[in-house]
């Protein structure tokens, strides 16, 4: 009985997880193309004269992505043998890109976002260690500059 539940969760995790991931990637790629005109750079200093900057404000975007049952089991197996945890790579990649996109979307009228940083945190982990919901949050933040025309 336990085994049947386990296998069903595994199948559900795999199919639902792959579907969600494919859809998310399609959406990410489409929006990245659309927002390509807005550069987001990690530079702290840009050589734009003070007078040319009309406004500067902090913008941020965050994304929370959860792991599915299949990925978690795959990672648990990897935990035994060691090596690259490939199943979590897409998770982090999606979270980073999604948070960058949301940051850009929140500064759609800006000309450039400078000093961009990305931070990652795991959330939903209970102190008891049992029955935790493993998901991660990525926050991207930076300074959006709007220049004089």
């Amino acid at each position, binding site marked *: 009985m336990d085994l049947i539940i386990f296998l069903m969760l595994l199948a559900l995790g795999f199919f639902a997880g792959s579907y969600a991931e494919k859809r998310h990637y399609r959406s990410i790629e489409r929006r990245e193309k659309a927002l*390509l005109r807005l*550069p987001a750079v990690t530079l702290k200093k840009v050589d734009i004269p003070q007078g040319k900057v009309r406004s500067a404000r902090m913008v941020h975007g965050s994304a929370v992505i959860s792991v599915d049952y299949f990925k978690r089991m795959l990672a648990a197996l990897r935990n035994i043998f060691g090596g690259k945890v*490939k199943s979590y*790579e897409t998770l982090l990649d999606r979270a980073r890109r999604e948070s960058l996109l949301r940051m850009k979307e929140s500064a759609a009228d800006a000309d450039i976002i400078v000093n961009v940083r990305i931070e990652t945190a795991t959330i939903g982990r209970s102190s008891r260690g049992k029955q935790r919901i493993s998901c991660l949050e990525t926050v991207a933040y930076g300074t959006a500059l709007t220049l004089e025309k």
Partner: protein
Amino acid sequence: MKYTPRLPETNVNVTPGSPLKEFFLLACGLLGLIAGIYLLLGLAVDWLAPRIPPGLENRMAAPLLHSLEKTPAKDPRVRCLQRLVDELQAHCAHLPYHFRVHLQDADAVNAVALPAGHIVVYRGLLDKVSSENELAFVLAHEMGHYAHRDHLRGLGRGLVLMAIASLFTGADSSLNSLLSSTLNLSEMRFSRSQESQADAFALAELNCYYGHVGGAVDLFEKLPEPAGPASVTHYFASHPANRKRISDLKKLAREKGYSEDSPKPLNCASGESCP
């Protein structure tokens, strides 16, 4: 410096490859590892079990079977079974055990050999038997398991399985509780060759005690053939199929030159005149 906006052509942060393939590879590796450990430890158990002296076995089993030790044999049927076992032990078996018989109030046609010489007989079996010889055969069969230390092998393998399960899933996982609840069952699941050996032992005992082997196969003739997967957990399902078993026993009796006589009537059920 001129900023040229463009998207990266490939995603370097995600390793290409099928996760399903990776999962199967790792799962198979893990299962193979577990199977290997189980096989090795199982062989170690097989090697070790016959070498455990009965004194040590008694000491090890004492804390586990404490509740069995304490229950007094008030039931006249238990006293009767006990006397039969004692007679067999005194006259023929001479095993280094102090056998104690317990009666389990359950309908199953079953008898179990627990460590340290505790034989548990189910009421269902007692209801089925009609002659003393029949009962003696069942008891001698269980004693045969002690003679070959099969009960320790079964128990040892069960323990190995438990240990592996708790190693990989944690001590209080659902898999572990599932295993411990079925451990009682798995410890009496002996291989067919072990059952056949115990049968041969019982047949020799019967011939030694009564001078003939009449009644040995009577119980098996009364049992229905195990049908379908529903009876897989049934005690006799793990024994050689009944019909095969009867023919094997008869063949063995012919080979050894055991004679067959009419079995003694059983008065155990009423508890009046016991052997």
